[in-house]
């Protein structure tokens, strides 16, 4: 038996949380106790790999025998023995644990560039990265490219800032190259703070070397010798793997003095952010590294002129840097052709909400929202109808069904009132209340305002208060107009991007779902039956058979009725928790 066996266990944050490390050690134990490693004719190894995006099915395990890959889902440590015995030893895959069609639909319709290594290689091993062509691009840049040539390649690749604003990366680098200074900095922005977004996290955890390689190339292109990776301290695994990667690079001579044998030095440090959303804003991030409070400062100068400690600074997002090695290796044309005329390449999104397949996806810019939701996402969960897509995280907006054929790129999303942002996508269906959705995002942004400028600090709070009024049934005539005025005011007058975009969820839902606001205010009704203060639960007596499930489930003792006769809910006592609604198997409880 001459087999080449590789076992890949997902060890992203999702995988680890589901027990990935235990699964991995179970495999390793099985391998060593079976003595496979010791047999000369057999090569068998078990690796941890980064997140492949489909976290709902974790722990995902690939078993690859002679190049033939079988993927298992929901693997627990106690399931390892059976897979090992039946599949690896005897060659019969455990069919009932193998992933279904959804897994392949989810993956096959994506174009993986940034995520191509995530789920394939061991992120904690530099040799695994080198084995798939890692650091070739950096070596090429150092051996045969001038800074101007690197900048030209990045410029013509049409790569734009993946942090959300979409500033052309090549132009930013060119500014950094042209300016003369004794010290220049390269900063990687890994302060991913949008609720529900984990694109950068997956890249930092699953392919940390790609980010570092991108930064090394940027250092060469701009003549910088000092770099920082700003990561949230809430991403401990990303911090750990980046630090391991930096240490390995230093040992290999890819970082430090005389990198790749040249006289060029580049020193890279990790700076852990303390968890303020606003520190994702470039100037606030730099103040934070300087040891000051993370508050945006007015942009009298571009960062490329005066950034960190008033020195020229090139700051890019994690995903932007991770794209760079691929662009250098495969050429600008290849990357540009992946995207649209205005923006090249692919973009990673985290797809979540009321969609069948949730997870991390990567698609070329220019695909339609419909493709993302219905092909990759597999459509809406539970046969409900699609209502809106919220993109761009708390700073983004809601896009209604009529714009589902919009092509994804910076400008087109802005045209329909949303933003690309860092790549959050939340699918909303008919059971989502748009007023409540807007309120949810505004709650986040108003609490995360740094407090420096008036419109953001007080304005967003006042908008939230109006929304709270509306969703609790106390909305007044004129509230919609007040929200609109305040929203436009905050957008026009705020100091930084956080404030300027904070009203987007409200303004976009007002634009497309104004009727929902109106029925909250005028009819005191929540059309999606979400806002607690505006709904009542009642029993349909003709359906209720008096099974008593609701009565037993009710935490407030609000359900009255004798066994086997229709029950009734006392509206005075009901706390509207919805437990009875979920408990009833006969759909005899309704909420209006």
């Amino acid at each position, binding site marked *: 038996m001459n087999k080449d066996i590789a076992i890949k266990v997902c060890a992203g944050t999702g995988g680890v949380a589901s027990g990935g490390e235990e699964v991995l050690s179970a495999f390793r134990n099985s391998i060593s106790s079976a003595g496979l490693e010791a047999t000369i004719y057999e090569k068998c190894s078990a690796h941890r790999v980064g997140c492949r995006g489909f976290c709902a099915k974790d722990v995902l395990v690939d078993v690859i025998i002679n190049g033939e890959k079988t993927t298992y889902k929901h693997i627990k440590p106690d399931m390892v023995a059976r897979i090992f015995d039946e599949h690896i030893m005897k060659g019969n895959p455990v069919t009932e644990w193998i992933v279904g069609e959804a897994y392949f639909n989810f993956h096959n319709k994506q174009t993986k560039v940034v995520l191509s290594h995530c789920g394939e290689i061991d992120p904690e091993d530099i040799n695994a990265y080198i084995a798939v062509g890692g650091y070739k691009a950096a070596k090429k840049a150092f051996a045969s490219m001038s800074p101007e040539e690197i900048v030209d390649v990045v410029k013509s690749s049409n790569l734009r800032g993946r942090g959300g604003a979409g500033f052309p990366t090549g132009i930013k680098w060119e500014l950094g190259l042209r300016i003369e200074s004794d010290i220049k900095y390269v900063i990687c922005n890994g302060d991913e703070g949008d609720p529900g977004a984990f694109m950068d996290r997956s890249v930092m955890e699953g392919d940390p070397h790609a980010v570092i390689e991108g930064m090394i190339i940027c250092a060469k292109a701009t003549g910088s010798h000092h770099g920082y990776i700003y990561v949230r301290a809430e991403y401990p695994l990303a911090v750990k793997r980046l630090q391991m990667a930096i240490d390995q690079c230093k040992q290999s001579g890819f970082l430090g003095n005389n990198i790749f044998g040249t006289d060029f030095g580049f020193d890279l440090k990790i700076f852990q952010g303390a968890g303020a959303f606003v520190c994702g804003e470039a100037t606030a991030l730099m103040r934070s590294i300087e040891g000051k409070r993370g508050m945006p400062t*007015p942009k009298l100068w571009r960062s490329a002129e005066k950034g960190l400690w008033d020195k020229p600074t090139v700051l890019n997002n994690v995903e932007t840097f991770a794209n760079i090695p691929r662009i250098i290796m495969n050429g600008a044309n290849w990357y540009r052709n992946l995207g649209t005329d205005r923006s090249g390449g692919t973009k990673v999104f985290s797809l979540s909400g009321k969609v069948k397949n949730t997870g991390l996806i990567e698609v070329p810019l220019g695909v339609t929202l419909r493709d993302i939701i219905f092909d990759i996402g597999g459509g809406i969960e539970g046969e409900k109808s699609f209502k809106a897509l919220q993109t761009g995280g708390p700073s983004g907006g809601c896009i209604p069904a009529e714009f589902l054929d919009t092509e994804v790129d910076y400008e087109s999303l802005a045209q329909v009132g949303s933003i690309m942002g860092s790549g959050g996508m939340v699918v909303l269906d008919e059971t989502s209340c748009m007023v409540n959705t807007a309120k949810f995002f505004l709650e986040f942004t108003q609490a995360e305002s740094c407090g*420096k400028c008036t419109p953001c600090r007080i304005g967003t709070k006042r908008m939230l208060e109006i929304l709270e009024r509306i969703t609790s049934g106390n909305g007044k005539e004129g509230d919609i107009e007040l929200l609109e005025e305040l929203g436009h005011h905050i957008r026009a007058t705020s100091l930084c991007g956080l404030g300027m975009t904070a009203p987007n969820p409200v303004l976009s839902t007002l634009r497309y779902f104004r009727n929902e606001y109106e029925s909250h205010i005028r009819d005191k009704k929540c059309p999606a039956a979400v806002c607690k203060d505006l709904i009542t639960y009642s029993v349909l007596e003709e359906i209720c058979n008096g099974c008593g499930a609701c009565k037993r489930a009710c935490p407030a003792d609000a359900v009255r009725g004798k066994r086997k006769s229709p029950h009734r809910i006392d509206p005075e006592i009901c706390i509207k928790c919805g437990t009875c609604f979920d408990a009833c198997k006969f759909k005899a409880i309704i909420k209006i």
Partner: protein
Amino acid sequence: MVTLKIDGKKVTVRKLSTVLDAARKLDIPIPTLCHHPELSPFGGCRLCLIEIKGYPKPVASCTTFAKEGMEIITASPSLEKLRRTTLELILSDHPKDCMVCERAGDCKLQELAYFYGIRENRFEGERRIYTKKDNNPFVAREMEKCILCGQCVRICDEIQGVGAIDFAYRGLKTKICPPFEKDLDCEFCGQCVSVCPTGALTGKMWAHKGRQNFKEVETVCPYCGCGCNLTLHVWRNEVIRVSSKEDTINEGWLCAKGRFGYGFIHSPDRLAKPLIRTAPKEGVDLNKPQNSSRFTIHDSQFKEVSWDEALDYIAVKLKETKEKYGSDAVGGLSSARCTNEENYLFQKFIRAVIGTNNVDHCARY
């Protein structure tokens, strides 16, 4: 130099001037609450918004460099509307107790609310409420009145070099406080008080002493040789506040003594006339060692005299001592409270008139 046009008027300013600087040069009023010419640009209050031809939306004039050929509009119906809404927002989180506020009549926010005629506020909502915890004798903080302009933070850091306070928390709960929200424990220079545009920071001893109709008396600080210019705010012949103006040698900055140390002026213990000691107090024998090496006014008997008498007396005694024991029997010690010129004259007097080098200055030890 760059030349730009503001509201149709041409103005030439130095490079790296802001649009606000240029407008001020033309005497065009642009409302501001967070701007201070001596402090780093902040861009927080968003009242100084202006329109620049070719720019997609209004920008803050305090944080925009004036550029050659810029065409700027500082007042338009849409700008005024934005400013008014911003003011409404600030006022929605500000107590309405101007009637009893220490700074009424001298408050930038009150003045703007007056100019914009804001009587009703469309944005009433939650307001910050804080418990007071100031035990220091100098600075009274009413943080509900704070509009987070950050001038106190910047002056403490950039001018005074102390950094006793900074921003803390986020969102509406953002506040300015000492580390760990402790009580203020700094050098109490009161620079923060001097730049606060509202009643958030005031002098504790100012309270209920009067807000207007005081006489302003210009003088020089008696505490040290720096000679800072003071403006005494006098009401019914009593100094009730001390401030300093920006166009003075000290640029309006003062220290704790100059700003808050004026209590001695009206102290009953203060010496207001020269005194000559006539005899030790009864029962005190000067030949015996004393408990204290210093005689106080209570140990001796004094006679109140005029300045002429006192100076004559000193001249006679100095002459006698010099003749009898020689010049080196006399020594002179001058004070850091005197000006440079006074100190110069004093050493000249000791060296040239008395004839000794025994002259020194309190700042040396």
